[in-house]
């Protein structure tokens, strides 16, 4: 009865309430337990279903109408046709569902491989370049860092589009950059250096850097740069101080309705720290949930590895000096 009470409570709560404007998850492995289906999938839910089934089999329930006779004569041909029809429809529906599910699953795996393949090729190009003594200018331009970030955003977008079945998914990456402060000292900000399609390219003209001690970077720093933030209502999150609104939110209010943000933690040259932030956004409501947390964490870690490698290679391989020499 206790579990039935929880189930009824959850269903009613889901019907009358809206989700929190922002949620911080540290892991998503137990997402299968949440929701009504989660309850029914757990051993307690399965036991309850089995118990109810057995209880119903023992005798006719109290609400069973007495007007229904105990035995009725049926036309066997009609019964066979009915059973065949129901079985056929259920089988067809099942196969259609299976086809859709398998195709989607394979597409998701394919998209993941596309990203890994691109990152591998990028690293191979970097290694090859390190071996060359003279890097020609064209090659350096092609290897633009921002271009690399844009490509990663595109692959991430395609992956999440398959995962969520939402065509309005977009992606952006902010990276830690040193800037000059007003007092003449150095300040550290997170600057948007990669954007996928779906986000206006004009955002680059009105983009604002987020200081490391404010908004999302600050929140994640306070939590050992761990976990994923899920924004269900950005304006409400800004009101409680969990999000810093920028000019782009005012200029393009429909581009990002919900989003998940994760830290990209990697080698910064001295230790592991938060090199950047990965944003997966959507124009639709209620797209993201706890089950996507580990997908964002996986991509954030993969991107962080590539980010750290690229920057360290450019630094150690003298590519920065080479770029300057080409100018």
């Amino acid at each position, binding site marked *: 009865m206790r579990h039935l009470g929880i189930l009824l409570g959850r269903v009613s709560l889901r019907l009358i309430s809206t989700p929190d404007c922002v*949620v*911080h*998850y*540290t892991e998503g492995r137990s997402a299968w337990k949440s929701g009504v289906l989660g309850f029914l999938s757990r051993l307690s839910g399965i036991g309850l279903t089995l118990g109810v089934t057995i209880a119903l089999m023992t005798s006719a329930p109290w609400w069973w109408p007495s007007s229904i006779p105990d035995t009725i004569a049926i036309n066997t041909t009609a019964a066979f046709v009915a059973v065949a029809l129901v079985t056929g429809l259920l089988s067809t529906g099942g196969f259609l569902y299976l086809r859709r599910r398998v195709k989607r699953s394979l597409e998701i795996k394919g998209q993941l491989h596309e990203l890994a393949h691109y990152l591998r090729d990028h690293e191979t190009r970097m290694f090859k370049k390190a071996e060359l003594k003279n890097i020609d200018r064209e090659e350096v331009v092609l290897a633009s860092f921002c271009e690399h970030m844009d490509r990663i955003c595109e692959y991430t977008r395609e992956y999440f589009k398959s995962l969520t079945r939402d065509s309005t998914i977009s992606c952006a990456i902010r990276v*830690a950059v040193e800037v000059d402060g007003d007092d003449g000292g150095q300040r550290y900000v997170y600057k948007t250096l990669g954007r996928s399609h779906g986000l206006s390219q004009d955002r680059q003209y009105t983009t604002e850097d987020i200081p490391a001690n404010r908004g999302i970077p600050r929140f994640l720093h306070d939590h050992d740069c761990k976990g994923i933030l899920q924004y269900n209502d950005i304006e409400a999150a800004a009101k409680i101080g969990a999000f810093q609104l920028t000019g782009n939110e005012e200029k393009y209010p429909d581009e990002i309705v919900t989003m998940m943000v994760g830290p990209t933690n990697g080698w910064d040259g001295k230790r592991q720290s938060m090199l950047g932030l990965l944003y997966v956004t959507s124009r639709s409501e209620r797209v993201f949930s706890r089950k996507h947390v580990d997908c964002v964490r996986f991509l954030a870690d993969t991107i962080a590895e590539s980010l750290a490698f690229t920057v360290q290679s450019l630094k150690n391989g003298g590519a*920065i000096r080479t770029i300057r020499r*080409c100018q």
Partner: protein
Amino acid sequence: MSIVKRLLAFSRKQLARRSDPVEEIVAKMQPVDETSMRLPRSFAHTMRQILSAESHNHAKVKG
């Protein structure tokens, strides 16, 4: 009616246990100086050089 209220209260507690209370954490946040934070300073410095070199390079190519 009271049973429904109790069920809703119980469900809220269950849902709240599954994620960190961001609102409360943000409300307790105090202003902090960047110098006391663990930031990727070396990485950020290199990024500055890369972006600077890249913007010069692109300007040269476009020009």
